[in-house]
């Protein structure tokens, strides 16, 4: 009778087939997935990613069963570590998310599709209007991407894994995904998940860093009276083509990402491609974000997450994002000083990228001091420049990591 019941509910039976720690780990991850769902549903964290990720995380840890061929307890979601051709062909026929993982994650396609969609919704006016200011702040806000590398090496990670962890400091999900796939497949899941979760958390932590670093009178500097040159669609289109070609030439290892982003920007600025704009925004960006979130959630099974190195990835990811914020704000203070208080220093934190979260944080903090302050448009340029500088640093990491 008991055997029949066990056969009827193998998901429950598997709790008794694994060590106690793993069984409790499964329960913990189901609850954690539920918590992410709650935060996403209430829009405390980004719902576009948290809802699919939370759903898949709950389901993958609940839906475990004995897999005779796989030699133990597993799921029917996907098998991320399969690489041998024959095993891969079998996996493609067994695991329902395996085709998406194999054909879009392992080659970085999903990151490129997201980037194409981001390109088509990115406004490059402010970057073109004030390129030197935008790029200076963006370079300053890469402090976390740079300094986390030696810190991670000091923690015992090899160069490639340390570089992949450091890429979290760039605060750009698709680039982190791409870099970790290229350099640290073993840690790709925790690094990417940490990046995406922390990018939402940044919204909560950054205001405190701002208040600690920037004096109140400087936070309230208004920038409305500063006129920006009008940028024509032709100038923006030419920028997309030239900047894309130059960066692909300099960093071919990141050419798929760079090409996708600038293609998106080019499509946005071409009036005749209205249908492409709608397709990339409505279908490609939405579709790739859904499968990115759901597949990442499905990768958060108990056997992937519970390890010592994951704890360090979480710690170092947080250090990277805090250092980048500190660097961006330091750059903002420098610009405020040299411009004789014409530029609000909060623009610096927008250069951490993470469009548009950090720009919104800067605007919110400025309005708390001066309700009339409107710095959001000025934040967009550094924010877009931040994507480009992160791509440059990560492509240097990938090139160096693959060569050595």
């Amino acid at each position: 009778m008991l055997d029949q019941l066990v056969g009827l509910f193998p998901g429950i039976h598997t709790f008794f087939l694994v060590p106690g720690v793993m069984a409790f780990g499964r329960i913990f991850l189901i609850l954690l997935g539920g918590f992410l769902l709650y935060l996403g549903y209430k829009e405390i964290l980004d719902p576009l990613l948290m809802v699919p990720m939370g759903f898949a995380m709950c389901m993958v840890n609940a839906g475990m069963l004995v897999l005779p061929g796989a030699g133990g307890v597993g799921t029917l979601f996907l098998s991320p570590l399969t690489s041998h051709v024959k095993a891969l062909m079998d996996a493609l026929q067994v695991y329902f998310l395996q085709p998406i993982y194999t054909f879009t994650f392992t080659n970085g396609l999903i990151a490129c599709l997201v980037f194409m969609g981001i390109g088509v919704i990115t406004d490059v006016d402010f970057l073109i209007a004030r390129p030197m200011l935008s790029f200076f702040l963006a370079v300053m806000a890469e402090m976390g991407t740079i300094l986390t590398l030696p810190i991670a090496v000091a923690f015992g990670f090899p160069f490639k894994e340390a570089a992949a962890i450091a890429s979290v400091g760039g605060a750009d999900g698709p680039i982190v995904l791409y870099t970790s796939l290229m350099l640290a497949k073993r840690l790709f899941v925790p690094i990417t998940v940490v990046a995406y979760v922390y990018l939402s958390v940044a919204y909560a932590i950054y205001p405190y860093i701002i208040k600690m670093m920037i004096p109140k009178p400087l936070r309230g500097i208004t920038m409305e009276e500063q006129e920006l040159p009008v940028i024509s669609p032709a100038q923006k289109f030419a920028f997309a083509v030239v900047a894309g070609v130059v960066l692909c030439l300099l960093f071919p290892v990141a050419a798929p990402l760079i090409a996708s982003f600038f293609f998106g920007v080019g499509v946005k600025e071409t009036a005749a491609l209205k249908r492409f704009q709608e397709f990339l925004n409505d279908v490609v960006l939405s579709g790739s974000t859904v499968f990115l979130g759901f597949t990442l959630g499905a990768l958060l099974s108990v056997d992937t997450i519970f390890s010592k190195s994951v704890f360090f990835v979480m710690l170092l990811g947080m250090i990277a994002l805090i250092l980048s914020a500190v660097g961006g704000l330091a750059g903002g203070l420098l610009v405020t000083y040299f411009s004789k208080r014409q530029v609000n220093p909060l623009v610096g934190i927008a250069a951490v990228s993470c469009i548009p979260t950090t720009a919104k944080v800067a605007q919110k903090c400025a309005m708390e001091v001066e309700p009339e302050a409107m710095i959001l448009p000025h934040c967009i340029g550094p924010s877009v420049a931040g994507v480009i500088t992160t791509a440059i640093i990560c492509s240097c990491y990938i090139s160096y990591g693959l060569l050595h």
Partner: protein
Amino acid sequence: MSWVEALKIALGIYGVTFVVAMFVGVVVIGIRKVISM
């Protein structure tokens, strides 16, 4: 690899990033001037 070596590499990459970013900035200014003519 020691953390000191990693720091040297990271700072070197930071320098490269700064130069390339400024170069792209100059290119952007050039595009703006050429296209507005």
